[in-house]
């Protein structure tokens, strides 16, 4: 009976986690397009391709992390797990994954902003020339 509850917990956990990952990466790289176009100075094909590649890389990292976090180890030898413990364990798992995902999102945003700043500062000596011509 206890192991059945743990299996139910896994089947609740997996759709939530995968849905969260898909949603976040979709939103992140939808906004990332404009950053990428800025970074690559208007070369749209390269920018969109890079964006797509980063998006494809974002899924495996996070889903892999979610699968590593999934195992509920502390109850595997016991046959009694009550509803309260189940809710607590699920809260711990989903919450820690959510914090991890948020950290990844903010890290990505930070990297985008920094790259954009670098591009702008290297571009600056050239930009005053163009209005004069």
């Amino acid at each position, binding site marked *: 009976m206890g192991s059945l509850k743990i299996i139910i917990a896994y089947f609740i956990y997996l759709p939530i986690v995968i849905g*969260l990952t898909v949603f*976040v990466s979709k*939103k*992140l790289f939808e*906004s990332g397009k*404009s*950053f990428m176009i*800025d970074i690559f100075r208007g070369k749209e094909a390269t920018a969109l391709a890079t964006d797509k590649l980063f998006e494809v890389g974002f899924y495996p990292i996070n889903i892999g992390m979610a699968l590593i976090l999934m195992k509920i180890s502390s109850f595997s030898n016991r046959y009694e797990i*009550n*509803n*309260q413990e189940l*809710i*607590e*364990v699920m*809260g*711990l798992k*989903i*919450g*820690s*994954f*959510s*914090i991890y*995902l*948020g*950290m990844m*999102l*903010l890290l990505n*945003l930070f990297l985008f*902003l920094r790259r954009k700043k670098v591009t702008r500062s290297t571009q600056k000596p050239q930009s005053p020339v163009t209005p004069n011509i």
Partner: protein
Amino acid sequence: MNFNVIIYIIYIPIIFFIMIKVGWLLFKNGEVFLCDIFQNDLEMTQNVNKLLLIGYYLINLGATTITITLWDNVESIHEMISTFSSILGKTILLLVIFHYNNIFWIKFLNRKKQTFN
């Protein structure tokens, strides 16, 4: 079904509602400040703001979900009410402290930028 399960079922919707409401208000009203920081680049502002909102939701809702593992066992109704109120109060106070911290940083950054220009 013991008292702990009941209290979790009450606690999670309340705290989620508060978090989502506060995040939405910050999202609406913070756009002006971000617009100042990004020198009126409107599209960039909206993108960054949206991403910040999602990051806020993920981190805060995750943290509040984690806190339910730290509760004591609740035995009776009056214990349930006191635990519930103290935890809810602590969480909201923490949220407010972060909020004022954010306001301070926004003011600080804006002032620094104005002295530069």
